[in-house]
Structures are given as C-alpha cells and as structure tokens.
C-alpha cells in the first residue's frame, strides 16, 4: 500500500572533513532559499503559461528602486536628473517604465539611439555616449538636439565635420577619466584629467570654433563599493569646470557623473554577502552631494545627471530555469543540466547568483555544479554551491539577473526565451520567445546551394 510507505528523500553521502572548514560552507535546511512566487504570481503558473526558461521582471521593484534613488538625490541636491542606461537593459517596456518615472535616455550606440527615438524620446532627452559614433549617427543626433559626449580627439574632428555640413555650432560635453582613489582606474574612455589631456581636448575644441563645450561627463567604473570615490570624482570635475571658466571663459552647465552603483549581486571573489558589503544608495547620494557642495560656488547649482543602470534594475529581474538532467562527476560532485546557461546569463562570469527553489527540498546539501544546455564545456552557471538533491523538472529561480543579461544574452545554439513583466499580479509578455524564423530572417541561401 502506497499509504504505508515512508516519504522519500534522495540518497546522499557526504565526506566529512575533520579539522578543516568545508570549502563549500554549510547548507542547513534553514539556509535554503525557497521562492514560490514573484510578486504574488506562482512560479508554477509562470512556467505553465510561458515555459522554461523564463525571464521575469517585477515592475513594482523597478519603480520602487528608481523612486528611492531619486528621493535619495533630490533631498540632497536641487537639480538632479536620472538618465536610464540603455545598455543595461533596453527592452522597450523596461525603458518605458524608466521614462515614465522621469528618466531621460543614456545611449552608447546608434542602435540604442534609434531605439530611444522610436520609443518616443526626443533628441534633447538623449545623452549620446560611447567610443563609436559614426558621422551619420552624429549628424542625426546633432540635428535632433541630443547631448553628445565626446570620447576621443577623432570624435572632435568628426563633430566639426558635421558642424560645418549643418552650418551650426554644436553644444558638446567631453568625457573625463580621472583618479578617484579606487582601482582599477578606468582610463580607456574619455580624456585623462591628471595628465592634462582633458585640458588639451578643451583647447582643441575652442580652437576649432565649431563646437561649444557646455558639459563634463565621467564614469569611474562599475560595481563601485566605495561611495567616497564619487565624492573625489565630483570635486575634481567641478574644480576642472571652474578652471576652464577662469582660463578660457567656458561655462559648464551640467555634470554627468555616470553610473557604477552596485546592485545586491554577489561579485565573485567577495567574501561578504551583498547585504553587508553593498552600501545603500543614500551613502552614494550623500558623498556625491558633499563633493558638489565642497567644490561648487555658493548659489551655483548646475544640472547633475546620473546614468545609473545596474543599481536600479538588477534586483527586479529573475530567471526561472528547470533541471533537465543530472549526473555524477568523477570527482564526486553532482552536475545538473539546466535549460538555461551562459547563453542567457552572460554575467555568470562575474557574479554568483542567488539560487532558490520553488518549493522546500529534502535531503542533505552536497557540492553541485549548475551547467547550462550548451554543448560547450564553459557552460557553467554556478559551481561550489551546496544544493539539496534535485530531481528532473525541479524549478530554480536565479537572481538578481535584471542587469546586462537580456542585452548581452546570445542567440547561440538555443532559442532565447520569453521575457515577462509582472505588474500587480498581471503578467505581460514584453519579449516573445524566439523561433526558427528569428534565426533565418537575416540569412540568404544562394540558389546554387539550395538542397530542395
């Protein structure tokens, strides 16, 4: 009789390491993470309706996070505008939420620029950054009044060509790179401040007479865990602006201090959990406003732009994935084959995601490897986590995955899955699952190679 049988827990055997700390840490039952729903919609219902794998975004989290960030800055400095970093996540529906919340667009390519324009964002509400802006792209941006941030001397030449062609003076900003006291110091983009290169760029712009410098931009890096770096950055930028005013009579109307605020993701190699290691947004706002007030002249409140991406969207994104198969590796570790891998979670290279199951799992945790579906040895989403024994069909929820994954994901070997948005228990598709037509649409098979 089935009723008389004992509940089944998968068999496990774990080697005990006496005198040593277990390198994988302990995984008692109470430390296991279970997520049965996202914003009230059950994982089971989501996968039943939209399949697995599935990217899920919480509109509530997106809106709450941007509102909290805006409040942190608006209560400290009177002239702040957020500019949504398209490259972090440029699905239209996501962009639209940020624009509804008052953000302008920050783009780094012609594709992103076109996407913002098609969504209805006017040129004057677009910041055009990046090292690769073609002359046609620059021309379009100039005609539409976009804020163009120059990355290198060649771009000054290109913009002067556009200015001559359109017979108009172009307002521009330059991107700076500087020593804000942290490592690594990003020096690839923009003009270096300390070496005098930035001043050379301004002199070059002045000499040309076709461009008018009215803004300074600087982005010191990504996942910056030290808020004080922004204070140093801001002070240096303001000081440089006043030097330009004194030396060349240039009036800087705005400062764009970039992004780089961390999310509550766990950077590989960090020991402390994100809840401990990641400072709250208020700490960044405090340091930045301190930097501004330390350096600005009394009563002078130029516009401050922030290009925060990761810090705003990462925690709003989840990936639901399913255990497709499992095997025992020769070294004793359990390997699970999931239906999502590095094709969908590009950021797995740098971040260790939170792994949750959609229900309580029984059995001792053991060292496990989470592999994706790709027939590629590199397809590893996680290694070294202690996971309970999981059978085929078990749903896993990986987070936070809202930043950079649905832009950097690859159509490689597998179709890309659907992306849905949850808003007050309503689930809407914001990007459909791909099919073969998406793969073949841009291909052309010469007649001589047709097989049938």
């Amino acid at each position, binding site marked *: 009789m089935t009723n008389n049988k004992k509940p089944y*827990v998968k*068999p496990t*055997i774990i080697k005990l390491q006496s005198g040593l700390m277990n390198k994988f840490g302990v995984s008692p039952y109470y430390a296991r993470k279970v997520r049965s729903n996202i914003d009230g919609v059950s994982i089971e219902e989501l996968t039943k309706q939209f399949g697995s794998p599935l990217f899920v975004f919480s509109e509530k989290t997106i809106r709450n996070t941007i509102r909290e960030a805006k409040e942190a800055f608006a209560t400290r400095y009177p002239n702040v505008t957020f500019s949504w970093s398209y490259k972090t996540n440029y699905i239209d529906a996501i962009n639209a939420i940020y624009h509804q919340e008052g953000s302008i667009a920050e783009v780094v390519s012609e594709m992103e620029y076109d996407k913002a324009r098609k969504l209805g964002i006017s040129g004057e509400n677009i910041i055009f950054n990046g090292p690769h802006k073609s002359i046609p792209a620059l021309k379009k941006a100039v005609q539409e009044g976009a804020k163009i941030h120059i990355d290198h001397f060649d771009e000054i030449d290109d913009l002067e060509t556009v200015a001559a062609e359109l017979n108009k003076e172009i307002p521009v900003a330059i991107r700076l790179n500087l020593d804000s006291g942290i490592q690594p110091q990003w020096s690839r983009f923009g003009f270096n401040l300390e070496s005098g290169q930035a001043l050379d760029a301004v002199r070059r712009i002045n000499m040309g007479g076709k461009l008018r410098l009215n803004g300074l931009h600087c982005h010191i890096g990504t996942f910056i865990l030290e808020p004080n770096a922004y204070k140093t950055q801001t002070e240096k930028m303001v000081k440089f602006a006043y030097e330009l005013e004194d030396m060349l009579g240039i009036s800087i109307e705005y400062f764009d201090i970039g992004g780089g605020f961390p999310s509550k993701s766990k950077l590989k190699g960090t020991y402390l959990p994100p809840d401990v290691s990641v400072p709250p947004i208020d700490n960044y706002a405090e340091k930045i406003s301190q930097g501004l007030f330390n350096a600005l002249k009394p009563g002078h409140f130029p516009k401050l732009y922030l290009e925060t991406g990761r810090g705003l969207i990462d925690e709003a994104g989840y990936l639901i994935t399913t255990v497709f198969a499992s*095997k025992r590796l020769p*070294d004793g570790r359990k390997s699970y084959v999931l239906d999502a891998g590095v094709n969908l979670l590009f950021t797995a290279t740098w971040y260790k995601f939170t792994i949750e199951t959609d229900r309580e799992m029984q059995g*001792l945790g053991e060292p496990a490897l989470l592999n994706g579906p790709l027939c590629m040895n590199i397809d590893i989403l996680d290694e070294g986590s202690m996971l309970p024994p999981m059978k085929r069909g078990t749903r896993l929820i990986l987070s936070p995955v809202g930043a950079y994954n649905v832009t950097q994901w690859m159509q490689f070997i597998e179709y890309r899955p659907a992306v849905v948005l949850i808003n007050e228990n309503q689930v809407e598709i914001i990007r459909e699952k791909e099919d073969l037509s998406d793969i073949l649409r841009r291909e052309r098979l010469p007649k001589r190679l047709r097989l049938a």
Partner: protein
Amino acid sequence: MNTNNRIARLAINEEGFVFDPQTGESFTVNQTGKVILKALMRSDSEESIILQLTEQFALSPQEAQADVRDFIHHLRAYQLIY
C-alpha cells in the same frame, strides 16, 4: 555487486555516521543512503536494492533506479567501491 572493496569494512551507526577503518575517513549518509549502503555491504544486487527502496518508500522504480545508480557513482568517486 562486488563488495571486495572498502565498502565491506565500513562501520555505520544508526544516525548515519560512516567510518572507514582502513583510511580513517568518515562520511555521513541520510536515511535512504543508509538503506542502499547496507544493502551494498550485504552484496545485494542493484535490482534488489531498487525493489527494497520502492517497497519501503513512496517513489517510482524509474526514480529509484536513477538514484541508486547515482549513489553508486558517488561511492566510486569516494573510491569506496571500484
């Protein structure tokens, strides 16, 4: 199942603590693992172990087969059987 291996000399207590006197290594097994381990020490066949599991626990023969196979692979990885 050939038990001419380390597994035959293992000591298991009721709580699932496993000691290998040959190497000094120790392990912990859960309830299900203990059932399988004891069966292997008695040289029970794989088929018999699957039957024992399905008789005692609520699971399908297919899942039992997969889990016994995986457990044996795990013992091999620990070099408890060859």
